C-alpha cells in the first residue's frame, strides 16, 4: 500500500486536488466543503514535501502517466527546479485555506461557498500540473484549467468591478494561452514531439528556421502576458485588487511565479540558453522591460488609494526583479531570480493576508481604513510592517537576501550591471515610499469616528498572516534552505543546456 503511494506520488500531487474539487462542489455545505479542501491541501503538502526530499536525495524523477513511456505518453518530471515550486504551491494552498474559512464567510455570499472551494482546488491542481509536467502540450492544458478557475475566483469578488477585472484578465489570459498554444504547435510541427526532454534533443537540428524562431517569440510573448511583465501587466492590478481576499492571497503569491516558471522552463530546458540568449535577442529585451517594470510598478504603487492595488503594483515591480535575474542568464543571476520568486511569494502572501484581515473588519482596504490601525489592530499591523520591510529589503528579512544575491549577480555584468544595480536600489527606495505611506497612516492618524470600535482581526486570520511574517524573518536569518534550493535549481537548468 505504502509503496504504491510512493511510486505514484507525482500523479497524486495533481490528482488529489483535481479529483476532490467536484466532490467539494457536491458537498454543498460550507463547513464540509472547507474541511475537505483543507484536508486535501494538507495531503498535497505532504506529497510535495515527500517529492522534494526524494528529488534532493536521488535526483530527477520521471513518472510515465498511465504506464505510457515518454516520449509517447505524458511524462511527469520532478527535478530540483520544479520540486521547490511544488512545495511553495502546496504551502500556499494550506495557508490560504486556513485563512479562507473566516474570510470567505464574510466576502462571498453563502450559496457559492462550495463553488469557491472547488474552483480554488481546480486552480491549485492546474498550477501544480503546469509545474510538474514534462510535456509541452500538457502545460497548455493545465494552464487553461488554472486560468479558467482563477477567472471564476476573481469574479467572486463582491465589488462589481471584479467582473470587469475578471473579464479583462480572461481576454488577456486567453490571448496569452493561445500564443503559447501556437508556439507549441509550431515546434510540434517541426519535431513531431511534445515531450520537453525529447524536444530539447530534436530542436537543435531545426533551430535555424523561421518557424522555430516564431514559435519561440509566441511562447515568450504569450507567457509574458501571464507573468504580467511590463507592458503586459495591465490585467494584474484590477484582478488582484477586486478578487476576494483569499483568492488574491493565493494568486498574488503563486500564479505569476508559475507563469515565470514556464517561461524559464521553455527557455532553458526546451530551447536552450544558447539559442535564447545567443541567436535571439532575449536578454536586452527582457532587461529593458524588467527595469521599466521596476520603475513603473513602484511609482504606480505610490499613488494608489487601495492597499490591494498598492500591493498589486508592487508585484509588477517585484516581477521585474525576478525577470532581471532570469535575463542575466548566468548561474548567479538565475539563482537570484528563482530565489526572489520564493521570497516574494512569502512576503506578498503575508501582505495580502494582512490586507485580507483589514478587509474582514472594514469591508474594504482603502488607505483611509488604515487610520489608527497601529492602535486598534496592532498584530495585523505588526505583520504588515514585517512584510513591508521585506519588500524594502531590510536586513534580516527575506527581501534582503534576494537583493543581496541579485546585486552580486549584476556585479559580474560590467556597465549594464551597474545600471541594473541602480534600478534595483531605486526600486527599494520607492518601496520605502509606498510602504511607509501606509505605516504613517496606520500609526499617526486617529481612527475614524465610525470605526472607533474597530477591533483586532480574529485569531484564526492572524495565524496565517503571522506564519508568513515569521517565515519572512526566518528566511532573512537563515536562508540556507531557499538559497540552496534556488542554486541547485539554477544548476539543473544550466546543466541541461545542450
Amino acid at each position, binding site marked *: 500500500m505504502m509503496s504504491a503511494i510512493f511510486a505514484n506520488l507525482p500523479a497524486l500531487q495533481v490528482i488529489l486536488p483535481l479529483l476532490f474539487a467536484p466532490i467539494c462542489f457536491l458537498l454543498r455545505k460550507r463547513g464540509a466543503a472547507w474541511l475537505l479542501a483543507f484536508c486535501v491541501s494538507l495531503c498535497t503538502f505532504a506529497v510535495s514535501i515527500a517529492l522534494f526530499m526524494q528529488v534532493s536525495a536521488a535526483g530527477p524523477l520521471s513518472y510515465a502517466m498511465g504506464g505510457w513511456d515518454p516520449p509517447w505518453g505524458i511524462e511527469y518530471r520532478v527535478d530540483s527546479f520544479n520540486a521547490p515550486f511544488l512545495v511553495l504551491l502546496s504551502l500556499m494552498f494550506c495557508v490560504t485555506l486556513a485563512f479562507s474559512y473566516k474570510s470567505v464567510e464574510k466576502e462571498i455570499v453563502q450559496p457559492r461557498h462550495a463553488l469557491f472551494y472547488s474552483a480554488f482546488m481546480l486552480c491549485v491542481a492546474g498550477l501544480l500540473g503546469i509545474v510538474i509536467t514534462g510535456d509541452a502540450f500538457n502545460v497548455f492544458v493545465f494552464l487553461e484549467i488554472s486560468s479558467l478557475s482563477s477567472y471564476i475566483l476573481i469574479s467572486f469578488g463582491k465589488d462589481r468591478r471584479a467582473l470587469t477585472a475578471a473579464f479583462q484578465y480572461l481576454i488577456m489570459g486567453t490571448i496569452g494561452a493561445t500564443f503559447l498554444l501556437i508556439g507549441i504547435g509550431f515546434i510540434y510541427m517541426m519535431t513531431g514531439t511534445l515531450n520537453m526532454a525529447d524536444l530539447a534533443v530534436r530542436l537543435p537540428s531545426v533551430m535555424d528556421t523561421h518557424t522555430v524562431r516564431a514559435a519561440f517569440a509566441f511562447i515568450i510573448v504569450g507567457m509574458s502576458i501571464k507573468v504580467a511583465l511590463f507592458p503586459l501587466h495591465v490585467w494584474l492590478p484590477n484582478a488582484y485588487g477586486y478578487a476576494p481576499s483569499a483568492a488574491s492571497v493565493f494568486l498574488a503569491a503563486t500564479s505569476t511565479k508559475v507563469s515565470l516558471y514556464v517561461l524559464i522552463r521553455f527557455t532553458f530546458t526546451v530551447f536552450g540558453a544558447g539559442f535564447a540568449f545567443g541567436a535571439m535577442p532575449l536578454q536586452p529585451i527582457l532587461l529593458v522591460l524588467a527595469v521599466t517594470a521596476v520603475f513603473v510598478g513602484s511609482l504606480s504603487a505610490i499613488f494608489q488609494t487601495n492597499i490591494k492595488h498598492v500591493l498589486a503594483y508592487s508585484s509588477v515591480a517585484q516581477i521585474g526583479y525576478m525577470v532581471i535575474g532570469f535575463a542575466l542568464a548566468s548561474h548567479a543571476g538565475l539563482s537570484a531570480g528563482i530565489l526572489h520568486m520564493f521570497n516574494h511569494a512569502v512576503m506578498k502572501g503575508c501582505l495580502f493576508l494582512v490586507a485580507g484581515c483589514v478587509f474582514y473588519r472594514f469591508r474594504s482596504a482603502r488607505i483611509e481604513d488604515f487610520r489608527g490601525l497601529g492602535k486598534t489592530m496592532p498584530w495585523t499591523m505588526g505583520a504588515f510592517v514585517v512584510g513591508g520591510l521585506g519588500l524594502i529589503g531590510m536586513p534580516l528579512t527575506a527581501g534582503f537576501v534576494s537583493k543581496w544575491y541579485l546585486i552580486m549577480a549584476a556585479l559580474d555584468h560590467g556597465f549594464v550591471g551597474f545600471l541594473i544595480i541602480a534600478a534595483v536600489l531605486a526600486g527599494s527606495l520607492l518601496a520605502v515610499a509606498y510602504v511607509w505611506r501606509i505605516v504613517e497612516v496606520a500609526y499617526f492618524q486617529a481612527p475614524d469616528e465610525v470605526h472607533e470600535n474597530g477591533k483586532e482581526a480574529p485569531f484564526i486570520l492572524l495565524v496565517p498572516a503571522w506564519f508568513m511574517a515569521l517565515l519572512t524573518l526566518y528566511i532573512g536569518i*537563515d536562508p*540556507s534552505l531557499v538559497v540552496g534550493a534556488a542554486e541547485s535549481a539554477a544548476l539543473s537548468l544550466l546543466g541541461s543546456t545542450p
Partner: protein
Amino acid sequence: MSYEALVSLAVCLPLAGAVLVWLCGNTPNLREAVTLVTGGLTFLSVLLLLPQGLSGMSPELVFAAPLPGLSLSFRLEPLGMLFALIASFLWIVTSIYSIGYMRGAKEENQTRFYICFALAIAFTLGIAFSANLLTLFVFYELLTLSTYPLVTHKGNDEARRGGRVYLGVLLTTSIAFFLPAIIWTYSVTGTLDFRPGGIFGGIADSFVVGALLILFCFGVGKAALMPFHRWLPSAMVAPTPVSALLHAVAVVKAGVFTLLKITVYIFGADLLVLLEARDLMLYIAGASILLASIVAMTRDNLKARLAYSTVSQLGYITLGALLATPAGITGAAMHIAMHAFGKITLFFCAGAIYVATKKTEISQMEGLGRAMPFTMLAFLIGSLSIIGLPPTGGTWSKWYLMLGSLEAGHIALMGVLMVSSLLNIAYLLPIPIRGFFAGRNEGPSILKEAPWPCLVAMGITSAGCFVLFFFPQPLHDLAASLYGGTP
C-alpha cells in the same frame, strides 16, 4: 564569566530589558527600576570586557549565518570597546535623566519610549561588537528602525514630518550607497571581516577603491556628512533624552564609529593615504565642519543649534578617520568619547530648561542663569568641552586631531579646525554668558530648576568632562592600541 558569554550578555540584556519594561508597563516605578537595573548590568558586563578589549583583536563569535560564506558575528576590539563603554555608561545616566524629564514634561506612551530606547541601545552595542560589515549593516538598519518611534514620539504632524526626513535620509543613504558599497567590497575581496591593515591588500585598482571610499563616506548617513545631514536637525522633534543619548551619542557615534572602523579595518591606513578620493573626502569633511558651524550660529532654537553643532563635530571625527595618521585616528577615537560627554550635557541642559520653563528659543533664555544656575553652569562646562578648552576633555581630542592634520601635511585642515573652534565659541558661549549677565534689570527671579533626576544626570556628565581632562590615559590607550594593531 567567559568572554563569549559577556559579549552576548551585553547585547541581550537590553533586549531582555525591553521585554521586561513592556511587561511592567502599568507600574511606572517598577518599569523605571527595570530600566535602571538593566542599564547597570549592561554597563557592568561591558566593563568586565575591558581587559579583553585592551588586548587587541579577540576571537570571533558567530551566532548566525544568513548568507553562505558570510556570518553574523561579534568580535571585540579596542574601538568597539570604547564605543560600547560610552554608550552603555551614558545609557544609565540618560535613564536617570529620562525619569525626571518624561514625568516632568508629562509625555505620553512612556512604556513605548523605554522599550524602544532599550532596543536602540541593544542594537548600538551590536554595532560596537560587529566582527564584519554585514553584521554592522544589520544592526545599523535595526538602529534606524528602532529609533524611528522615538523620533516621532509626539505623534503630531511635526513629528511625522521630522520622522519622514529622518527615515528618508538614513534609509536612502544606506540603501543607495552603503549596501552597494558593501556588496561591491565583498565581490572584490571575498570577505567583509574587519581585519587589522584592511582587506583590500593589493587586490583592487585605486579607481574602484576610491569609488568605494566615497560610497562608504556618504552611505553611512548616520555620520551626517554634508549634504546628507538633514536628518539630524529633523530628529530634534524627539523628546530631549532621545536627542541627548541617540542624536548626540548612540546613533551619530554609530555613524562615525562605522566610518572609523571602515577606514582602519577595511581600507587600512596604508592604502587610504594613497587614494585621491581621500583628499576629496577630507575637504568635504572640512567644508562640513565649517558650514555646519555657520548654520548653527543662525539657529535660535537651542536644540537645532546643538544639532548643527553635532553635524560639525561629527565632521571632526570623519576628518580624523580619513587622515589615517596615528594622531588622526587617536584623535578621532578620543573625540567620540569627548564629544559624547560634552554634547549630552548640553542636550540635558536644553531639556531641563524645557521642562522647567517650556522655553526652547535661545533669545528667551536671557537671565535664565539666575533661575537655573546649576543648569547654566553645566551648559558652560559642556560648551568648553565642545570648544576644546581646558580643563575639559575636549582639549585632548582636538589636540590630536590638529597634530594629525599636521602629520598628514594638510595645513589647510588645521586652519579649518582652528576657525571652527572660534565659531564654536561664537555660537555656544553667549548662551551661558547672557544667561548669567543679561537682563539684570528685570529684578531677581526665583530659583526654579528641573526635577532632581535631571540635575543628577547633568552633574555626572559635566563631571565626566573634567575627569576626561585629568585622566585621559585609559581612553588614549584604547585609541592608540587601535592604531598599534595595524602592521
